[in-house]
């Protein structure tokens, strides 16, 4: 098993080395997985069948559901660990490979970006280095030129079109470069000179599309109160996913194969174009049928022309359904509509002006935050129901189809190889690569180091965005039903998404002991010895599995945050659901661009956790008091619940440490996390 050795390299940065694990570790993990899941199934089975206190169903059912959630989580974790893959030494890189190194930036300080870019330039394997400046800053351009580093900004095509944040930045660069492979780096991720030599070899398998390396942060103290390092994720979890050919792309410190991305772009282009043209033609059909009916009623002289356009729409739809290529269908359609429009004379210019205004408000809209083009069904409906002048109707049909045609007039470039479906482009892109049959590799060697957020507010925003992005992908492209994925891959994606639902379970795990201690209301029929007999073995086996899997790395922070950030996870779930189903914005949080000097304790950020702690402490006092006064006759029940409260408090305590945390070095003014290009490390709660 590879793990941090604690050794320091010349720069004084602790380093992962490729270290083989002790023999028998895999077997031990598998034994513990089987043990944990057997005991867990036995416990939760006993809970459902024999110990749910149905009389108090309003707390009993949520509790057993929350426990079932945790068991499913344990199954998914066990499945991940079953195939932990330690790849060891990489093959030699193909000597003639051409590589572009992309340093992505939006608003980070020029010096910070430059430091990364200069390190990128020093990478030993032959390559070209580019700064992808989405901020289009003259001083950044000048600095790049001065150091002989390539500089790319958005082309003019992007003006007034959806920008798609970091995904758009990379998509733009893809069409301005030519390398076979590309290394993607966030602005603060300083690469090791050997990074390409150590990763390119994995591409000798022609089906490999991606090699991801760990993200590691150097501005983090030993105790890591903000939980920035994700040693369980960049370690056993990624290695486990790798075993199922589902290693995740995390947005930075990864090498991608251009051919795979381009193929993804073309497949996506075909799909988006087909769907949009089909929708637009359906609306056009409704619109024309209405206009023709009206013209027939009023014996409008242009009835013949309108009917011809209606026929053109109908035939275009028929040809499309019959499988005719989209470009053929739309070209023929536009020709016929153009001819019809020419044959008509504009009689009432004013009516047409009104119509043209309505055309501008076509039902093709841009999602303000994702920048995703969405066909607004309601607006399309309104368009179809509007009273059109004959020429206006024809114009609108023409514009409608034009907007979504094969030239994708609504997008800056017709192809978007990196997925733009979510605020976190990495997971969606990776899943689509896997559906096309590409492979991914997790290379467990630290080959870049970066900067983590240094205050609670920034950290919370970053986590919120990851969570929102992940849940968006789950809702928009549910991995469980994606064609082309193996069952293992589906479950690996689902596991990460499932883990973000932990906020709801956490609320129940806080509420249940409080309700028992305060009111003596039992969600479980027995809190006595029988309960302990069923529960303790599962608990112990689970912790043992964690201990063995995470031996030598710190997994406790991750465990704490998966529960302590419960308000954030819940917020992520409902904002993402509201965004996907109701089209609501995700909700912006203003990001301070530089860390504020000496701030007061940020109580406002942790109100729910503070309330939870107060209630837990109060409940303990009441519980003890009830036992003392004889109101409660169950010392074991009280004892179990007080222990439970103590565990909750221990978990929640981390958020207060984080809130009180002040970064030791006040000279650092950089804030690596902003809306556009966060270090897209996805920390998984296990």
């Amino acid at each position, binding site marked *: 098993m590879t793990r941090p050795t604690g050794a320091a390299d010349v720069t004084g940065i602790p380093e992962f080395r490729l270290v083989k694990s002790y023999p028998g570790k895999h077997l031990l993990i598998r034994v513990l997985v089987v043990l944990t899941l057997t005991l867990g199934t036995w416990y939760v089975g006993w809970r459902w069948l024999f110990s749910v206190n149905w009389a108090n169903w309003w707390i009993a059912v949520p509790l057993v559901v929350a426990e079932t959630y945790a068991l499913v989580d344990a199954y998914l974790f066990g499945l991940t660990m079953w195939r932990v893959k330690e790849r060891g030494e990489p093959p030699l890189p193909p000597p003639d490979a051409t590589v572009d190194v992309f340093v992505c930036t939006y608003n980070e300080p020029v010096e910070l970006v430059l430091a990364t870019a200069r390190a990128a330039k020093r990478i030993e394997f032959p390559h070209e280095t580019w700064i992808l400046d989405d901020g289009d800053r003259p001083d950044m351009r000048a600095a790049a030129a001065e150091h002989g580093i390539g500089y790319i900004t958005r082309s003019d095509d992007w003006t007034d079109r959806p920008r798609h944040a970091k995904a758009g930045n990379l998509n733009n660069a893809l069409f301005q470069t*030519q390398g076979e492979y590309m290394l993607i780096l966030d602005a603060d991720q300083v690469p090791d000179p050997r990074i390409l030599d150590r990763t390119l070899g994995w591409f000798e398998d022609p089906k490999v599309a991606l090699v991801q390396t760990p993200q590691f942060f150097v501005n983090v103290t030993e105790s890591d109160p903000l939980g920035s390092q994700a040693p369980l994720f960049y370690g056993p979890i990624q290695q486990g996913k790798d075993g199922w050919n589902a290693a995740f792309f995390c947005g930075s410190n990864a090498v991608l194969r251009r051919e795979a991305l381009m193929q993804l772009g073309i497949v996506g282009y075909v799909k988006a174009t087909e769907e949009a043209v089909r929708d637009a033609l359906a609306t056009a059909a409704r619109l024309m049928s209405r206009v023709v009916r009206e013209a027939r009623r009023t014996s409008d002289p242009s009835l013949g022309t309108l009917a011809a356009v209606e026929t053109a729409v109908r035939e275009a739809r028929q040809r499309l359904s019959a499988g005719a*290529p989209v470009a053929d269908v739309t070209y023929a359609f536009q020709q016929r509509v153009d001819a019809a429009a020419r044959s008509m004379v504009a009689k009432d210019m004013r009516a047409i002006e009104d119509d043209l205004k309505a055309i501008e408000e076509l039902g093709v809209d841009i999602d303000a935050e994702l920048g995703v083009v969405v066909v607004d069904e309601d607006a399309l409906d309104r368009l179809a129901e509007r009273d059109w002048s004959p020429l206006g109707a024809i114009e609108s049909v023409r514009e409608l189809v034009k907007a979504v045609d*094969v*030239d994708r007039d609504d997008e800056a470039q017709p192809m978007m190889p990196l997925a733009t479906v979510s605020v976190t482009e990495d997971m969606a892109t990776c899943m689509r690569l896997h559906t096309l049959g590409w492979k991914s590799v997790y290379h467990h060697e630290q080959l870049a180091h970066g900067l983590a957020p240094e205050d609670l507010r920034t950290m919370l925003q970053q986590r919120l965005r990851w969570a929102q992005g992940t849940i968006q992908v789950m809702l928009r492209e549910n991995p469980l039903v994606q064609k082309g994925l193996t069952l293992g891959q589906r479950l690996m994606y689902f596991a990460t998404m499932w883990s973000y639902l932990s906020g709801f379970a956490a609320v129940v795990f806080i509420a249940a002991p409080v309700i028992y201690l305060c009111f003596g209301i039992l969600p479980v029929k027995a809190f006595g010895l029988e309960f302990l007999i069923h529960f303790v073995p599962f608990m112990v086996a689970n912790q043992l599995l964690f201990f063995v899997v995470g031996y030598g790395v710190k997994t406790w922070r991750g465990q704490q945050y998966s529960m302590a950030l419960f308000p954030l996870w819940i917020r992520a779930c409902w904002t993402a659901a509201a965004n996907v189903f109701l089209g609501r914005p995700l909700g912006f949080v203003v990001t301070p661009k530089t860390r504020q000097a000496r701030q007061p304790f940020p109580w406002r950020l942790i109100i729910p956790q503070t309330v939870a702690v107060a209630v837990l402490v109060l409940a303990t006092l009441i519980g003890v008091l009830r036992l003392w006064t004889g109101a409660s006759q169950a010392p074991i029940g009280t004892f179990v619940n007080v222990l439970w409260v103590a565990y909750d408090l221990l978990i929640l305590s981390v958020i207060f440490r984080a809130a009180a945390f002040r970064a030791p070095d006040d000279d650092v003014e950089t804030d690596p996390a902003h809306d556009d290009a966060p270090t897209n490390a996805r920390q998984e709660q296990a």
Partner: protein
Amino acid sequence: MEIDTSDVRGKVAVVRLDGRLNMVAAPRLKGAIEDLVDHGGTHVVVDLTAVTFMDSSGLGALIAALKKARQAQGDLRIAGVNEQVATVLKLTNLDRVLRPFESVEAAADGW
């Protein structure tokens, strides 16, 4: 890869390709067709008969060129698709958008 753009008959321009249409050649092809369209050759047939290999970047250049032609009220079609190119078209579903024509004449028919 060789890109021959000399065959222009009014608005119809034939682009003949010879060799490997890959990530290195793709930007050149895109540039060449954009140039043609800007000079009035808005209806472009790309003759792929002599293309020995095409990758997704090559397809990407065709899509970008299609966009350019359409925006100039023109069109772009492909002709002379061999087996390897047909496989790539099928793999990416691009045959759902672009129809491969038998010959340049068949492609230009109807413009």
